């Protein structure tokens, strides 16, 4: 068993920073919350309802961004973002305005494969504004981000929180532009 003593809730309109050293199980915890991992015991509730009863409803309102960008290198940025919306049953919209904010507007038609790692992560972050969700679970979103993007991410997070969105993110150092409402730390077990 990797972690125990898990008992926390993420209130409406809150930003929670999950802090912990490398290999303490942060990623596994996040993946478990998303339903990607197998929790040995205990339940996950979404709006009072156990997720296990209706996982589809929970996943529709969840946006999980992990270590890997999850983009197809054969497809262009627009196509990748378009498919994510289509898979959620939403009409495809032009990602131009969002890409503009991230300085990727010029690359919209380019294959994701030809982009740098940092740019690919920016495309992943663009999904935050393109896919409506009420819960963001972000695993190390600050990795390989330049300064402007960090500010953009901080601003986006704050805006999302104002609208009542829930954010849970992991990072070595906190995002200094925005104060987390809640901080969860994983204590190393003392042998």
């Amino acid at each position: 068993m990797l972690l125990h003593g898990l008992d926390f809730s993420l209130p409406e309109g809150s930003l929670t920073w999950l802090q912990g050293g490398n290999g303490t199980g942060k990623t596994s915890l996040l993946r478990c919350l998303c339903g990607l991992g197998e929790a040995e015991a205990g339940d996950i509730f979404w709006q009072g309802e156990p997720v296990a009863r209706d996982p589809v409803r929970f996943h529709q309102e969840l946006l999980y961004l992990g270590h890997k960008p999850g983009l197809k290198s054969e497809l262009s940025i627009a196509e990748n973002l378009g498919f994510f919306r289509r898979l959620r049953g939403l009409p495809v919209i032009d990602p131009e305005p969002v890409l503009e904010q991230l300085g990727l507007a010029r690359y919209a038609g380019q294959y994701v494969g030809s982009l740098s790692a940092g740019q690919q992560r920016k495309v992943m972050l663009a999904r935050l504004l393109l896919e409506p969700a009420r819960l963001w679970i972000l695993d190390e979103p600050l990795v390989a981000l330049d300064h402007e993007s960090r500010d953009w991410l901080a601003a986006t997070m704050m805006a999302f929180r104002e609208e009542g969105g829930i954010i849970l993110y992991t990072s070595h150092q906190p995002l200094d532009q925005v104060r987390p409402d809640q901080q969860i730390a994983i204590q190393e077990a003392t042998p």
Partner: protein
Amino acid sequence: MSFTSFADFLAMGGYAPYVWTCYGATLLTLAVIVAGLRRQKKKLMETIRLQHPERQAVAPGRIVVKQTAEDS
């Protein structure tokens, strides 16, 4: 007793090679399974014993929820 003499028993009515290879194979299979069991146990005991004193198995980390500034 369906055999008159021991030699008769060994000959197995001329089918000795077939019958005895089968019985031999059965014995061998059972022996292989039992040997596998014991070897597995010995190997397990060793790895657990080796693992036991030096490296404490990673005890699970505890989750501590700290409420930071309530004002924001």
